[in-house]
């Protein structure tokens, strides 16, 4: 707990004035020949938790991949703290301080939990030290010598988040962290996101689970057919519930 609160202080002091951290303008993306992202526009301010909501195949995951540089063909403008990412390679984008938690969780099955945890190099100061990570995810500490492919889905998800926290990245792209997990694990991940937010982390979250998302996020973008079609502040959600449910088909 002590480590957590010291993290909290450094984050807030370094976060500075609330400004645009990520600014995505007219983002286009292609998978081979097929045009999958058409004019994605969104912004994320420092310290915000923003979700991308939408149905399956709407382009949410692709948007995260495009920001990260994992989508090879893209056009438009993606600014991170003023730096344009559009011509940068994946590894350069990661070095600018973006942590990526993919929907597949990206755990290496042939590496132990410890090796997975230590794999991402530190890219900035102020990341979580191992004791703070164990405090956040006690399950992981018990399984340090297990191989990644022996973990449950929930443990993999925690590991996927935990190893990013070590790197010092302040901005996390999180792709469906609740997918296929038991309610108790979803709750634990929800608490984690809340604690990160309190510690000044900025999170762009892709979610299908709207109930999970509305408890955590400041704002929501609706993604449909490769476009951002609507935006709601969390306090507007109640008034627009029907509309949102219509978008999501729930």
């Amino acid at each position, binding site marked *: 707990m002590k480590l957590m609160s010291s993290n909290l202080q450094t984050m807030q002091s370094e976060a500075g004035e609330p400004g645009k951290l990520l600014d995505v303008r007219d983002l286009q993306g292609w998978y081979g020949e097929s045009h999958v992202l058409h004019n994605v526009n969104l912004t994320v301010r420092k310290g915000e938790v923003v979700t991308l909501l939408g149905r399956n195949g709407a382009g949410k995951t692709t948007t995260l991949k495009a920001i990260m540089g994992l989508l090879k063909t893209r056009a438009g403008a993606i600014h991170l703290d003023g730096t344009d990412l559009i011509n940068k390679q*994946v590894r350069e984008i990661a070095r600018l301080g973006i942590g*990526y938690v993919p929907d597949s969780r990206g755990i*290496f099955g*042939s590496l132990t939990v410890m090796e997975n945890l230590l794999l*991402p*190099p530190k890219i900035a100061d102020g990341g979580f030290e191992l004791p703070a990570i164990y405090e956040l995810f006690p399950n992981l500490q018990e399984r340090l010598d297990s191989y990644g492919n022996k973990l449950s889905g929930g443990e993999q998800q925690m590991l996927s988040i935990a190893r990013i926290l070590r*790197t010092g990245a302040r901005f996390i792209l999180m792709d469906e962290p609740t997918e296929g997990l038991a309610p108790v694990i979803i709750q634990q991940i929800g608490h984690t996101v809340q604690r990160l937010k309190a510690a000044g982390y900025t999170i762009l979250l892709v979610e299908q689970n709207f109930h999970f998302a509305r408890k955590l996020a400041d704002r929501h973008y609706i993604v449909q057919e490769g476009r951002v079609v609507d935006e709601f502040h969390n306090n507007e959600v109640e008034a627009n519930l029907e509309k949102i449910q219509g978008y999501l088909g729930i």
Partner: protein
Amino acid sequence: MFELLGVPPQAFFGQVLLGLINGSFYAVLSLGLAVIFGLLNIINFAHGALYMMGAFVSWMLLTYFGIPFWFALVLSPLIVGAIGMLIERTMLRPLHELDHLYSLLLTFGLTLVITGIFQNYYGVSGKPYPIPPILSGGVNLGFIYLPKYRAFIIAMSILVCFSTWFLIEKTRLGAYLRAATENPEMVSAFGINVPLLVTLTYGFGVALAAFAGVLAAPVYSVNPVMGNDLIIVVFAVIVIGGMGSIMGAIVGGFSLGLVEGLTKVFYPEASTTIIFIIMALVLLFKPSGIFGREA
């Protein structure tokens, strides 16, 4: 026991020793192939030619510059490894997105080119390379006469195999390598320079081949085609051990060398084919190899 088998003990142990020496070369060479195959998914057909270059570079270092064996043991793998990295950057990388068959054909072509160049300048007859003085002579162990240099080959091979295994399985760098073998995209999303890792890995695998070449220089004659026959056996070894498996390459290399030696004692007619018979059996019953992961 030996009387029962009708084999004199000297012949028996002599072949065991020879088997272990051949096994030492199989192990180091197949280890390099396994490291390269694991990360790059390339079947490096040029491995035999690069092994030959390792031997030739140490011969050149001695002949033209008077640089002795002990320095060549380090310098030659570094030089040939650097050439390997150049090959990866300029020729293999552009083929990365294409079918593996292209890189296999390219490395096969490289073998012909490299061998051809060396044949052009040095002919096909071997160049002699002296055993370093401190390792000449041997020890009589009673049941067998053990030449010092041969013992040195086995010791060096075990040392290099163990170090490589340790590097890959137990260190941070090795963890990057294993992770990149599994999911290179995710590794680059952590900010790691995967193309550089690929180049270094290829260079390392090539350096292992060159190292085997330096070890071979004093015992086999240094000639442009010295890698040709050896590499075919080494490919059989990695198929048996399991493509890309580090343990499979090491254990497979030594044990198949030994099997080959023992076959020479008990059924000499089969000694050159035994490894291929085992390969066929492994392919029939466990196609991913003895240490390979099931696909």
